């Protein structure tokens, strides 16, 4: 895995981030004002396959919305190596831990394909959320709903529904 060297796309060559956020299912429902505020705080970035966005346990420096490509969330299991437990698909958030204490990454996020992101730096985003109630009231529910969806999925995964647990009598 390569360490992240986020390639930031020059703003003059890119469409406004607002359009990207309006198209992403995570943020399309935000009010125009909230989405505009958010768009002004972020930038476009790309990852090449294998590039790491954040590492499990490290401070979460970024919150990102995947616009294209695929991010794998991996956890390290001693003697089994990295296990991919979830992939983040376009429209979904990666790095929500950047706005939830203690601001540490809960898994390692690595690009499994060439990936384009709307990237937000953690510290200024946290400051904005602390000082701008309208932004916080708009953004936290969508972040929470994404985390809740992920929790729900994780529960189903925990059930290991497709496993064969014992020898059957037939």
């Amino acid at each position, binding site marked *: 895995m390569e360490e992240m060297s986020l390639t930031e796309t020059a703003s003059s060559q890119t469409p406004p981030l607002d359009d990207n956020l309006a198209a992403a*299912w995570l943020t399309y429902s935000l009010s125009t004002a909230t989405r505009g505020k958010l768009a002004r705080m972020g930038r476009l970035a790309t990852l090449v*396959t294998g590039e790491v966005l954040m590492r499990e346990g490290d401070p979460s420096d970024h919150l990102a919305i995947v616009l294209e490509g*695929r991010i*794998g*969330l*991996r956890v390290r299991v001693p003697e089994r*190596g*990295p*296990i*991919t*437990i*979830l*992939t983040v*698909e376009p*429209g979904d958030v990666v790095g929500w831990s950047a706005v939830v204490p203690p601001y540490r990454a809960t898994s390692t996020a690595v690009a*499994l*394909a060439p990936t384009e992101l709307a990237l937000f730096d953690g510290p200024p985003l946290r400051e904005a959320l602390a000082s701008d109630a309208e932004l916080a009231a708009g953004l936290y529910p969508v972040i929470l709903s994404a985390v809740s*969806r992920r929790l*729900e*999925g994780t529960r*189903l*995964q925990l*059930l*290991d*529904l*497709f*496993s*064969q*647990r014992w*020898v*059957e*009598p*037939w």
Partner: protein
Amino acid sequence: MVAANPAGDAGETYFLRRELVNELIQALATDDREVIGPRVEDGTIRLGPVSSAVDLPRGVGLDNAPGKARLVERGDDRLFDQPVGPDSWKRWTFPPRVTQAVWTDGDGTPAIERRLENPPRQITKKAFLGVRACEIAALRVHDRVLAQGPTPDRDYAARRRDNLIVAVECAVAGGTCFCASMGTGPEVRDGFDLALSEIDDGFVVRVGTPAGAAVLAGLPVNPATDAQFEHAQASAARVREQMGVTLPTDGLPERLIAAADSPRWAEIAERCIACTNCTLVCPTCFCTSVGQRSDLDGQAASSERTWDSCFTLDFARVAGGNFRTRVSDRYRQWLTHKFGTWTTQFGSSGCVGCGRCITWCPVGIDVRDELMAVAPPPEAAVVARPMIEALPVVAPLPPVRHEQHGTPPVKTTVVDTHRETHDTVTLRLRTDYQPLINGKPGQFVMPSLPAGASPAISISRFHNDGFSLTVRAAGASTARICALERGETLTVRGPMGRGWPVEQALGRDVMVITGGIGLAPLRPLLDWLIANRDHIARIQLSYGARTPGDRLYTAELDTLLLSGVIDIAQTVDRAGPEWLGRVGVVTQVIDRIMCSCDKTTAFICGPERMMQATVDVLHERGVPDERIWVTLERHMDCGVGLCGHCQLGRFFVCKDGPVFSLAELGPAFGIEGL
């Protein structure tokens, strides 16, 4: 003294002196009939062969109450003054053990000898002496369940044919009797060849059929006097009054079904020890299992049908799970089926009010009390239920011809095998049996090897010369099927069940959502959808597997994906770093798919919990219940709606499903423990 009219006018009434019962028994035993009747045995009243009046329980009563049955020596001459004992007539019409098939290995090729192809040869004719009103009702219930469905139980039909029914009208009510509540007694109204009412010095005998009249023809009987007839009627009226109406049944099925979440179920489970006694003594419980065994030298194997009970732990076991692990679930299953969904399934209650389940419950659980507690009637008033007139009369059943049996065993030949995963194999099987070649997507077969279990396996593809099965080696029998090689033989019964309603896909967006080996039953559907691609707006397959290595038909899916004929999204629950595809549950694939959801038809197959989560997402997205189709997994032992294992609400999943729309299932889908 006159002889009875041998022409047999039904309704004629005679008087038979008690000392002539021996002659009656001898008359019943003509034509090599075996006479079965009540006897004192094992400290109670049992049913068994009766060769003379000495065998009958003269002067003996049975004092019964919840969890209690004690013989009482009365010292009089009366022969039938007892409530029923633990046996019911199903012991003879539906024996606890029946050999179904025998495989012999004479020339190296397993051959099937269907024992039931000549059932009358092995079954002696029976005369049942002492059949109570509730038991006539029970025989009728069994006739409906076992002999009047689309696939009659041939063994039952053969055993019921030519029964002579000598009814006895009860002169005493037991402490657990409640036939008056269930509308089945105590008066014997019909369904008999002869009906006896015991009075002081003999019996008032009513003739029900010409066969009954023929029995009476050789006996020295007199026409009953008015006094004798009135004495008999008064006796029956006294029993009705003695018993009273203890269980209000109006609206009971609906009340019970509405009480699925009652806390009372857990409370009952603290007393119920799941011993199965209630189901074994019940005259209408009909659930069976089929077991296989082989002799020690491997020369012959047989399959044997035995009584089973919904109280056993493995009754609702399916691959990878068990729908009713808790006793409370099993008690609820029994009670709600017997008194509730039985009515919607078969047109009558499954209970006849004989009280055996109360008497022989070792902890004395009284279903009358439990029903009143779980599903109390809206009003306190208890109304006597009129005698049921709607059930079909007990009539000799016509012989069931072999060709009427819908699913004869068919030999198929393995022409190709393909290993899908570490434990799953696809077998291509050749046959010229047209019903199999022309089966419907979603139907299943029951394959079996000698001495092996016969699991339900969905057909995973149809071919011009046969079909394919994708089988996971879950246990010994399926492992043997997976190990079959080209040229070997596999016997199957099928096709069974109702398949996918493919026409529901026409003109619509179609979402096919599946997980694990659930893709196999959907593959024939996908084949059909692709063959009819021009008539379908969009086809989206969402497929989840445990790991990348557990996916089925991978090469085929890759080809399909490249062709662009259908959209395919695959996901796995977990993966190593080499997997660059999706990881996550299948619901997270479909919750973001763009679709015209109000115009979508969804077909789903997978573990029930996965299907529930999927249905939740589809509901959120506006897909109506009528167009959400699921295929249910339940324990299927027979495949034709006879063994009872897969009963769910008003359905047998094997014959009424396994494919259902959510609208059909209603609340039966997704209730834990159902």
